[in-house]
């Protein structure tokens, strides 16, 4: 069965990057970024978390080396979550838009 074998060097590199990102997100929480831009703290936190998640999915879970079908499954799961989150939050966000 042919499969791409990812070397431990790459795993170690990814792990180190994840550690750096973890430190970064902890540090970012101690800085009041909301003063610059409303909601910047949560945006930064989610961006960092997503970068970490992408690294885990691509390299620890071998998604980078996998078939199109696998990538479609991953994309579908994430996309469907996005539908649920964004359309629901869209309802809440636009409630204050009522024309008076």
């Amino acid at each position, binding site marked *: 069965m042919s499969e791409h074998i990812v070397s431990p060097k790459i795993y170690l590199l990814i792990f180190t990057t994840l550690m750096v990102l973890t430190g970064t997100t902890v540090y970012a929480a101690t800085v009041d970024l909301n003063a610059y831009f409303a909601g910047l703290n949560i945006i930064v936190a989610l961006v960092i978390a997503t970068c970490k998640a992408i690294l885990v999915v691509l390299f620890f879970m071998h998604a980078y080396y996998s078939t199109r079908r696998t990538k479609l499954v991953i994309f579908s799961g994430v996309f*469907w979550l996005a539908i*649920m989150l964004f359309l629901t939050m869209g309802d*809440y*966000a636009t409630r204050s838009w009522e024309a008076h």
Partner: protein
Amino acid sequence: MATTTTAPAHTMPREHYLNSTYGIRSWLLTTDHKRIAWLYLAGVTFFFTLGGIFAAMIRIHLLTPNGLLVSPETYNKLFTMHGVAMIFFFLIPSIPAVLGNFLIPLMIGAKDVAFPKLNLLSWYVYITGGCFVLYAFATGGLDTGWTFYTPLSSVYSNSAVAPAVIGIFINGFSSILTGLNFVVTIHTMRAPGMTWFRLPLFIWAHYATSIIFILGTPVIAITLLLVALERTLHLGFFNPVLGGDPILFQHLFWFYSHPAVYIMILPAMGVISEIIPTFARKPIFGYTFIAASSIAIAVIGFFVWAHHMFLTGESTYAALAFSLLSYLVAIPSAVKVFNWTATLYKGSISYDTPMLYALGFIGLFLIGGLTGLFLACLGLDIHIHDTYFVIAHFHYIMVGGAIMGYLGGLHFWWPKITGKLYPEFLARVAAVTLFVGFNLTFGPQFLLGFMGMPRRYHNYPPEYQVLNVLSTAGASILAIGYLLPMIYFTWSVRYGKAAGPNPWPATGLEWTTASPPPTENFEVTPVVDWEPYDYKNRPDLGLAAPVVPLAPAHGDD
């Protein structure tokens, strides 16, 4: 009109999946998808009967304006339990778990599904969930409506909500595992030569349904779990008094429950796509469009859920978006109806029982679907939301559509499943009875809703009585239409004529093996090198002669 070809009398194969092993353990511990289909048949029939009894009690109660049969509290329990039993334990599993389980491996040329043990586990999970719900029914009932809106369900109801939602939660995993099994099976277990576009449309329909199972069901699972936790631990997610939000529950609930209605209809559409070409003796019109529309319905269906919440407090802009998307989702369904009709055009049509159900489906689904568009219109929905118009709409789709598809499919594949023929004349009588009874039951309800009769009310103003009585009369005829198949199907297992491998005849891999099939489905793995619905080109099935054109040939094939 000739029905089945007059062939020499067939005999049952000596050994097949039903008699290859004996004993209760060989059934309860089976991993054969065909036997698991029977296990599900038993389960869904039980819940259908239970839901039907509740429905009968509702209709009897509504014979008089002040209610004839039960107290208001009990009435609430009746419609709730009718909905829960029918939706979660009959309609959602019915075609996929019974017909899908039986046919998918056969149609793709495989020995079984990808995960047979998981398939059996799915059934046990279904039964476990069902037991929890039955326990809830027996110990206090359920009065929140099948929609479990909070905070009634999570705080104030005095009925057995917690066991019921836990039961539905558990049952959700049955769906998820079945959907997972089907998707993997369809991807990896196809016989050589069975390319994606040679697959029967039944398979495409179940693939689309499985997408919904996989991506939608987990959300209702976590939502109902939260309701159970809220009820038992007094958390506050959906309780305004504690800072929670009932609309959040509705978003979470409908994110699954709207696509759930597509779970209920897509498999039925798949059945219709199999029946129509067979009894019109023509290839299906627009195969690719029907396949694509199944996927489109599954996908777009996830974008429309808040059309159930137009009147409960969502923002106007969200409502506009969801209304527009709801209109969009009607388009792929319409594509299918056009294509089925085009298949019938210039076909050599015979009116066997499955075809009667299929034709009934097309008409009734059309009405049900179009009235859905009425409801998707924001302005109109203000008037008809929560009235009998909604009830008539979804019963036209779920009974006139899904159940007709289920029964049509059962009749169509009964010879394959049991090796026996059901009595054709009686079956046609039953089909017509069902059609008449159904329309008499639910047709008046459109009028009632339009005239303003609210749903889920145990009483009504006297001016609605005539239509209610008509509806109940129709229900009694409908009940006969349901009872007859239960009787003659049971009869046919023992006394029916042997069907032979291909009684209709139909194209499709499942008809190339014996009836009933052997446990391993095929003696030798089939190799597919023909196109689906090849009705013009099968001399081996007596289908060589093309339809005589009515006008000089103008190459419209």
